[in-house]
């Protein structure tokens, strides 16, 4: 990384007195003081790291001996286990517990810059302290100017494609997050700078004619569905699969409501059929149950497009019980069953029809209902109910 040869730099800097002073050992120190300090610090850091690495290796050998393991078996996981065993710690904060890790992971990193042979730092924006992000901002600015110019020159003319004079098409995607941008540019920067970049991007994307920069803009976009999964409470939107036999798209997800677990499979290009444990929609006599089952289709305006196949089971029945007890023979509640199916259906519809994700999310159908039957308390007839008090 650091390509500095002292001899070369001294020759390069000796131009300071080209004709009058000959090159001799008495000439003033050619290399800058800052660079000298940097070199010294860098060498010190390298020496220190070397020492710590050697110490770590010795410690590892000792540890292997103590745990009667072969040195090759002692990888990082084994070290962690050994340390946990040798130094049991009740401290709650994991950072406060004793660790043994390679020095490169633990010790602070030394900032390295790239210099040329005269000690000049690399990059024209080096002194802005955030060269990469400011470079990106300048790139956006230059592109903004060129897009405006392009539009002004070509508006109303027939020489260019009409689609090129439209704003860039960015539907179904969003700007990459600050963390991803930091990784992409391999540079740390503040949130303010990220906000500035996003404002610049938004302005560029809003301009008529920014379609010519579509490729540049899409480098900094990511698909929207990839991120909504993390925002949802409960199971994420499933991936779309393709049935090998019928060649139809389908999505499958397992969810629950109260004591009912439902595995729902929604198949695209169907006729709006329902099959819930062998029951069809009209087998549910309660109108509320039918409304609940149809809700995702109504909101996504896809009535009659998807087939729904669901199997339900009771969660309490499948819990591991004490071996000497009889298995519970309960069934889930009658009103919870359609709700569990509705949640699963909504998730699958969002997967198969991504445009309807936002309406479904806003209507709350993609959110899991985590409520459970409250357990009854000892010395009470129910969860909250008390025995009637009676004067004795």
């Amino acid at each position, binding site marked *: 990384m650091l390509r500095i040869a002292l001899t070369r730099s001294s020759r390069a800097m000796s131009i300071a007195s080209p004709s009058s*002073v000959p090159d001799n050992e008495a000439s003033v120190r050619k290399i800058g003081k*800052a660079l000298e300090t*940097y070199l010294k610090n860098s060498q010190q850091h390298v020496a220190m790291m070397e020492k710590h690495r050697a110490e770590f290796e010795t410690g590892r050998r000792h540890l292997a001996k103590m745990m009667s393991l072969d040195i090759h078996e002692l990888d990082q996981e084994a070290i962690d286990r050994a340390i946990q065993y040798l130094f049991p710690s009740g401290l709650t904060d994991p950072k406060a517990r004793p660790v043994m890790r390679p020095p490169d992971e633990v010790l602070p990193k030394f900032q390295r810059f790239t210099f040329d042979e005269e*000690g000049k730092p690399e990059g*024209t*924006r080096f*002194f802005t302290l955030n060269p990469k992000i400011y470079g990106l901002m300048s790139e956006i600015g230059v592109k903004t100017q060129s897009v405006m110019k392009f539009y002004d020159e070509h508006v109303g003319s027939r020489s260019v494609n009409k689609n090129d004079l439209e704003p860039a098409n960015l539907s179904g995607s969003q700007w990459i997050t600050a963390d991803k941008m930091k990784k992409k540019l391999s540079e740390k920067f503040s949130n303010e700078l990220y906000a500035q970049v996003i404002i610049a991007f938004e302005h560029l994307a809003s301009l008529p004619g920014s379609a010519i920069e579509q490729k540049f803009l899409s480098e900094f976009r990511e698909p929207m569905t990839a991120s909504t999964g993390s925002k949802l409470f409960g199971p994420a939107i499933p991936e779309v699969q393709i049935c090998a036999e019928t060649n139809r798209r389908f999505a499958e997800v397992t969810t629950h409501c109260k004591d009912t677990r439902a595995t729902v499979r929604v198949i695209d290009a169907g006729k709006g059929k329902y099959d819930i444990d062998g029951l069809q929609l009209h087998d549910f006599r309660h109108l509320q149950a039918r409304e609940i089952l149809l809700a995702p289709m109504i909101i996504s305006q896809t009535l009659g497009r998807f087939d729904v196949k669901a199997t339900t089971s009771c969660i309490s029945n499948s819990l591991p019980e004490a071996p000497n007890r009889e298995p519970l023979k309960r069934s889930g509640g009658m009103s919870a069953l359609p709700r569990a199916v509705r949640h699963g259906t909504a998730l699958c519809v969002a997967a198969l029809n991504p445009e309807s994700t936002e309406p479904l999310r806003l209507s709350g159908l993609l959110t899991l209902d985590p409520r459970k039957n409250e357990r009854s308390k000892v010395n009470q007839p129910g969860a909250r109910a008390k025995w009637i008090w009676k004067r004795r």
Partner: protein
Amino acid sequence: MNLFIFFLEISFFFFHIFLVHFVLFLYLIKACLKARFPDLLKPDFQMRRAVATAIHAERAFSSRFAAQPQKASTSSVPDRSTLEKGTVQPTVLKPFVSASLQHEDLFNFEKLVHVDEMFKARLHYGHKIGTVNNNMKWALYGERLGVCVFDLDITKQYLVRALNFVAHVAMRGGMILFVTSNRDTMFDVEKAAEEVGQYSHVRKWQSGTLTNTRQLLGASVRLPDAVFFLSTLTSLGENHPAIIEAAKMTIPTIGVVDSNSDPAYLTYLIPANDDTPQSTEYLLRMFKEAIRKGQEERKRLQQGGGK
């Protein structure tokens, strides 16, 4: 009626007494000051000081007063006593300065810079008279329709001097930092700096960028050898914070100063218009040319020295 005239007379009387006392008081102050600082109240004191400074500068930098060259032949490095003397009288160090620096216009920029080109590039336009900085009046030719107009002869003289300095820095392999906070010209400045392999800073100035690199970058780095300000004012009309930082680190600065700019703390001034695209384009072109000339000279010397 009589009463009114009476009051009037009385008030006049008091007013006269007050006036006389006030004048006497002023004389008293003047006498005191004269006793304390005999130089201060002489009318030509300021003028004399200015003349003395000018003569001093002339002696320091003109070839007419150059010290005798026989000293240079004895040794190329000044001894201790000469260096000590040099702290008081810099001219004694002149023979030790390299020959290329003794030249007034080594790169011949006098031929490159033309007043009519500068006029076409609108370098002579200043701002409205009301905004003029007192310390910029020396560079003005006058005013027209309420707008300051620069004297392009003065501008040319200063521009040539600044270009020579930049070329000398480039010839010695120095780093030049291009700074502006003008939003209209920032991309041009960045492009120009990139073209000649130099550095640019057109964004928000983090305080301590030059003075506190160790903390901000994690290591001390080589600082720029010269800073070139294409406009010295920020959008708020304040001086760019980098000017003071460069002065603190004794980094020479070159500044394009408009009629409303403050030339304080800048080493090389260029009194000219810094807002118009034509003028900034012209100035950037000139400075790019100067840096290129310096770099070419450097390459030539390196090849000559290597043989």
